[in-house]
């Protein structure tokens, strides 16, 4: 069974890759612009550059994204669960969230620079902050909607608040949390373009922007392929987590 599902997964992925390549080819032929090279050109640069250039950049970005996602999850999930459980705290924090959430965090860059310097810390904190908001909102909304029946059931066992979180709120919200991590991953990769444009010469975001600036579109798209692959791998990881930890949902 697992083997079969693995083969079929590989199969669909391959077909998808071929289809994407085909669409790409057609589009690049239609557009006839250097800004959108045909897929084989990008693939060729990808192959050439993978070990020499792309890998180190990917590693740096992976590190930044990985740390940020983890920190954001470690802070955001408990806070979200707390707010979703406690109507009072929620009512008090909601205006704060609602006022600050829509403000793009980019504008706080100067403050971050002063407080944290121009090194990796400010970059990681920036990604973390943005992903954190997404995780908090998703987790809170999920925790708000946890069926009261389950809470009562575990409360009747005289569970402490901590145990309620552990046995009810967390598992009940886990599917939503994993969704928010997936979204957070997408967001984090997008923010790479923001934070890897200052004071660094490393990272896949820098690589792509730099290739773009020097109008080296084949390199740029090689970077995009690498980015897609990196995201794909983290995604697979999250998906496996979902299969494993949420096997109770419509098993």
């Amino acid at each position, binding site marked *: 069974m697992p083997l079969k599902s693995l083969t079929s997964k590989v199969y669909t992925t391959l077909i998808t890759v071929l289809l994407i390549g085909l669409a790409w080819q057609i589009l690049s032929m239609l557009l006839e612009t250097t800004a959108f090279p045909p897929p084989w050109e990008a693939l060729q640069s990808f192959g050439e550059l993978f070990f020499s250039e792309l890998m180190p950049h990917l590693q740096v970005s992976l590190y930044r994204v990985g740390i940020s996602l983890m920190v954001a999850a470690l802070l955001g999930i408990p806070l979200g669960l707390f707010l979703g459980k406690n109507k009072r705290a929620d009512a008090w924090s909601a205006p704060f969230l609602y006022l600050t959430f829509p403000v793009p965090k980019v504008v706080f860059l100067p403050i971050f620079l002063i407080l944290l310097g121009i090194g990796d810390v400010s970059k990681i904190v920036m990604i973390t902050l943005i992903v954190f908001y997404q995780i908090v909102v998703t987790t809170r909304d999920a925790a708000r909607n946890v069926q009261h029946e389950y809470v009562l059931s575990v409360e009747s066992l005289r569970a402490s608040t901590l*145990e309620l979180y552990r046995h009810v709120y967390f598992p009940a919200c886990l599917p939503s949390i994993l969704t928010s991590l997936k979204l957070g991953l997408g967001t984090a990769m997008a923010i790479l373009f923001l934070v890897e444009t200052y004071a660094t010469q490393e990272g896949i975001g820098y690589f792509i922007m730099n290739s773009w600036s020097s109008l080296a579109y084949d390199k740029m798209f090689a970077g995009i392929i690498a980015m897609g692959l990196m995201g794909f791998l983290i995604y697979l990881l999250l998906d496996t987590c979902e299969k494993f930890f949420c096997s109770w949902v419509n098993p």
Partner: protein
Amino acid sequence: MKNYLTIESLNVVYAQNGQLTPALKDVSLTLPQGQIGAIIGPSGCGKSTLLNVVAGLNKNYQGKVLLKGAPPQANNEVALILQEYGLLPWKTVWDNVRLGLQIKGIAGTQAAQRTEEILKQLGLLHLRKRFPIQLSGGQRQRVAIARSMVLHPELLLMDEPFSSLDALTREEMQDLVLKVWQETGLTILIITHNIEEAVFLGQKIFVMSPCPGIITQEINNPLAGDYEARGKMEFLEVCNALRLSLRGRCQACL
């Protein structure tokens, strides 16, 4: 005998969308330690509401509710079987049953042993790795029973615990509860719709009537717990009396 449970002029009102639904009005009852009380009454008369208050789940009540002289939330020795089972869909049968022990701080082999024992008694051991959604209705109900029995509580609150069981399994369960009661002397409050069950188990039978829920009658029933009595004339007479008492309910509300 000391009263384990004392309720005095309990009132519960549900508020929903600005509308108030009175669910219990001026309910008083006592249950001595080591006795079995049975609550019987028409659908929607507030039985589950009453049980939730006693279990400490509903803190939104007026009146006095005491378990061993303390408010319900303070009591650690209560176990409740919810009407809708209250199984956690993300835990297997085994984990659902073990959860209470885990929360009580009982772990390791002792917890595993007790869990295994109760599952065996209820004929569920072969289902231990399943999730609740993979069980039949009656199997779920038995898991809910196992979940509270495994705790060895001082007070066992049961909300229609055998409603989804076939007649035979039901009798087996009744016998099991009775056996445990005789062995450990715990106090039990059971809600049931089955008149025979109320008479077979309830030393004190509380008859409720709706709109809003009140206790209309309290019957002391010496036949309770007597296996022999089940078929006898006396037993049937009490059943009939109870049936009559139930018929006299308020018609206005339906």
